């Protein structure tokens, strides 16, 4: 379980999250919505212990990670994997080496076994043909697919964190990425692999998530399912949804 308890974090003069609290289970399919600069990515980094809050506690698996050392955090991070907005592939390594990275670091598999596993993962995200390409030779959608494959090689995470998974992609590629996210979280709770996707693309979020959190001014203004979100009385959220729907997501 993940629990944020009154978490506050500032960068310089700017307070990004103010006493933010929420709870989530590893098997949940969650979308965190909000505008740019509202601290959505910061929430993901806090979950992974990549940032430490100024105040408040973050509990993962009944352990307070805010006081943990880097070595202790490594064990907590094994529960997760993350796919950053632009994929964050290692640009000095080709696709094969990017996906094999974690296997080489953390397993004693032989090279032919690593190759088999890499091919299996690339096939799962439907990008096997790009195995020996360099990251700069890939399109945005392909980079994200490779990043997803790499995240799956990361010691079987219980939950995947997606940072703006469809931003900057054309509608068809975004659709493919949404299908892939759904595929990877197939099954019924509590056995399935859950995810938290932060995004400002509400239509894409609606395709994949079952629970929606809306972040505004450093706080969670809404927490509920799709139906509740559509019927919300929260004026800001209503405007956020309407604006996106009227404009059409890809134009925003």
């Amino acid at each position, binding site marked *: 379980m993940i629990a944020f308890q009154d978490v506050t974090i500032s960068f*310089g003069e700017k307070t990004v999250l103010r006493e933010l609290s929420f709870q989530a289970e590893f098997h949940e399919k969650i979308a965190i919505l909000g505008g740019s600069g509202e601290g959505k990515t910061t929430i993901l*980094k806090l979950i*992974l212990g*990549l940032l430490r809050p100024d105040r408040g506690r973050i509990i993962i698996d009944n352990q307070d990670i805010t006081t943990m050392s*880097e070595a202790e955090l*490594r064990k907590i*991070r*094994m529960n*997760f*994997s*993350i796919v*950053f*907005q*632009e994929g*964050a*592939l*290692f*640009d000095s390594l080709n696709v094969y080496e990017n996906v094999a*990275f*974690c296997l080489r*670091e*953390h397993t004693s598999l032989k090279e032919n076994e690593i190759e088999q596993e890499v091919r299996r993962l690339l096939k799962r995200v439907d990008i096997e043909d790009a195995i020996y390409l360099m990251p700069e030779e890939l399109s945005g959608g392909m980079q994200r697919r490779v990043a997803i494959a790499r995240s799956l090689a*990361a010691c079987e995470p219980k939950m995947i964190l997606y940072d703006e998974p469809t931003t900057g992609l054309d509608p068809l590629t975004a659709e493919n990425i949404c299908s892939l996210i759904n595929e990877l979280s197939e099954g019924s709770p509590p056995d399935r692999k859950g995810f938290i996707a932060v995004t400002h693309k509400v239509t894409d979020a609606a395709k994949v998530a079952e629970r929606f959190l809306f972040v505004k001014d450093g706080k969670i203004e809404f927490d509920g399912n799709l139906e509740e979100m559509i019927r919300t009385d929260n004026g800001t959220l209503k405007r956020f949804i309407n604006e996106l729907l009227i404009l059409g997501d890809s134009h925003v």
Partner: protein
Amino acid sequence: MKPDLKNILNHLQSFYILSIKAPLGMFSRPFYLRETIEQMDYAGAGSFLIVILVSLFIGMALSLQTSVELAALGLKMYTGKIVGVSIIREIGPVAIALSYAGRVGSGMASELGSMVLGHQVDILRVFGVDPVKKLVTPRVLSSIIMLPALTLVGDAVSLLGGYYIAVFVSHQSGPLYWSQIKDIMDFNNIFSGLSKPFLFGYLISCISCYMGLSTTGGARGLRKATTTAVVLSTILIIITDFALTRILIFILGMKV
């Protein structure tokens, strides 16, 4: 990075930790041999031509200046000795280190900086990989191996440049020039000249990696990190050179 005292102390503390952790990383598993070799290739082989060029012209300029002054005093025959001591003890290590900071140090800072901005360093941490051990240790190790090696090459080329000017421009005797060089090749001079690049390599790589890893704020932040890495390295090379020269003179019992 605001220039307030708390911020400066935080940076100093983080730099201190990195500069201790990075060399210690060489002695524990996992060993990143491939990364170290790649860095040695980038830092060493990649800098070879620049070092040759810089050293050749420094040696020629120094020989030319020295010959002119000594000719006025009728002491041209000492050109080799003065050029040799200056190059081996002082100018060679400092000039090569400054070139190294400009080429390799800036490269390290910008490469690590863009890895930070592109979340690649975050990914390493999420995958349970220590970024200092994976990224900094190979760069520090390659620098403390390659900078002394480059300095050796640079010194040799400078002496050849000095020889060319002494013999073909200043019309001195070639064998005399080399015998003067041979005379100054004692333990004190060689030790003075070759101990410095180890420390310079360590300093340049630690500063550059630290600046790269603490990059914030996009392209502007990257520019600032790279510039700061080169400026700090340059200043520290000059200050450390003076301090080290003073210490070596004391340790080796040389008279001032």
